[in-house]
């Protein structure tokens, strides 16, 4: 649920989907092995 909250916040700030994804992955980098196989949005 933390991911959703962060996405809501960053989306409200006007970040692009890709920028949001970069920020999310940076924050959860330590858990990357558990990440779903979700592709990056187009640049």
């Amino acid at each position, binding site marked *: 649920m933390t991911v*959703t909250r962060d996405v809501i*916040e*960053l989306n409200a700030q006007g970040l692009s989907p890709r920028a949001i994804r970069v*920020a999310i992955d*940076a*924050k*959860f980098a330590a858990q990357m092995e558990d990440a*779903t*196989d979700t592709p990056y949005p187009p640049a």
Partner: protein
Amino acid sequence: MAVLTNTGGSEAERRLTRRFALRWAVAGAGSALLAGCDDKKSKSPTPTATVAPTATIAAAAGAVDFSARFAAFAPTDEPNGDLAKVVWPAYVLNAGGDVKQLYEFQVLNGDLMRWMPCFCACKGDGHHNNRDCYVKAVNADGSVVFDAMAPT
């Protein structure tokens, strides 16, 4: 820094000049010391940070690019639902806090959340993105079949 030169004059005048110069130097040094101790923090309130922690972390991390790691995968279709058609399950209504708002966002933003991962190890359950922990399916009429994994 002023340089004293013996420009002549009486001994008393020279002592006066040296005394003045010494006092001036001490006063100047003292002012400099006090200015350095003039902690702006003590005079003005600390500004409240408004930058989102996530964004800040991303900046600090140098924006590490994990895109290549996920390049082989295709995004799943995540149509948006219709909140007017949603029948909220008890586990959402009873969860309290902002849980319902999170579910609402997921219902209305499938086109965004299809690009966001989940890190709860739900990959083993067949989930492909963060939304899968909230929404199982969206019917043609906009009604939604929910997943209970998100609040757990």
